[in-house]
């Protein structure tokens, strides 16, 4: 195994089970609609604005929470990694010459988040393993995120795998 991947593995294993919480803010119909518009979902736009006008609850697009990569205000451009990722989106790899690829995802929906709800995301590295692929070694990270509403209700749980490769 390379020294770089060894370092990624050591950092990741040191973080396994360490949960970090992040305030996602208060969900807004505007954000739901922009997300739906990027998916060309005209039906959602009409329905959500009609529900809002009628004073009804407006539920987010089903995968809105899972699809949003970051809830931070930043970072500003000069703080991004060369590949454009923010440091936080790149767990265990800060300062290391690695590439990352999204391996896959599981999303379990518990309760539809509605506009006006303040949401918290709790996130942890849950596993870190060295694997051997056709093109060489890589580290496979498991990351779990749990979204909850201000009343404690679980809205969604998400498991992701991230493939960390050496270079460039």
């Amino acid at each position, binding site marked *: 195994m390379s020294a770089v991947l060894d370092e990624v593995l050591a950092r990741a294993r040191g973080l396994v089970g360490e949960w970090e919480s992040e305030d996602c803010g208060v969900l807004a119909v505007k954000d739901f609609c922009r997300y739906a*518009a*990027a*998916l*060309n979902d005209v039906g959602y736009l009409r329905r959500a604005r009609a529900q809002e006008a009628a004073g009804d609850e407006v539920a987010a697009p*089903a995968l809105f929470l899972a699809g*949003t990569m970051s809830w931070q205000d930043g970072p500003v451009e000069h703080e991004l990694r060369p*590949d454009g990722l923010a440091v936080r989106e790149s767990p265990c790899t800060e300062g290391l010459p690695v590439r990352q690829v999204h*391996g896959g995802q599981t*999303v379990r*929906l518990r309760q539809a988040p509605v506009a006006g709800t303040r949401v918290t995301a709790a996130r942890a590295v849950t596993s870190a393993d060295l694997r051997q692929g056709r093109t060489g070694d890589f580290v496979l990270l498991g990351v779990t995120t749990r979204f909850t509403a201000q009343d404690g209700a679980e809205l969604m749980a998400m498991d992701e795998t991230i493939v960390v490769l050496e270079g460039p």
Partner: protein
Amino acid sequence: MSGAPAAGQVCPSRSYTHSPVQLFRFSAVSWNSHRIHYDAGYAASEGFPGVVVQSTLHGETLSRRALDWAGPGAALESVSWRNRATAVAGEPLTWTGTVRAAEPCDGGTRVTLDVAVVKGDGVPCVTGLVELSWRAGRTSP
């Protein structure tokens, strides 16, 4: 969908492409600043022939096409997928789905679909499972 779903039932496939504009807009709304999704020069430097479709956009496609097939009253319970090959903007893609199981649940029905997004040459970009449910009295997802 016509009639009750049954294991082995093949859903009508759906063909589509993602435009570069859609990939940029989806990156923007999801606050995903990875350059492979909107910077063609950077994507080329990583060996890709175009800007790369986001994994989460594939997840949206897997679940949304399944809900389209299911029709009114269906709700998404879960979706999972594994990324197998890269897709780029403008590339012809096809959603496929097959019913793996259909079983009663909480006064309704739960259906599990094997789903995939497939490239023009038949190579799968993503493969996964979508779980949908219908419950009595629910008229819209």
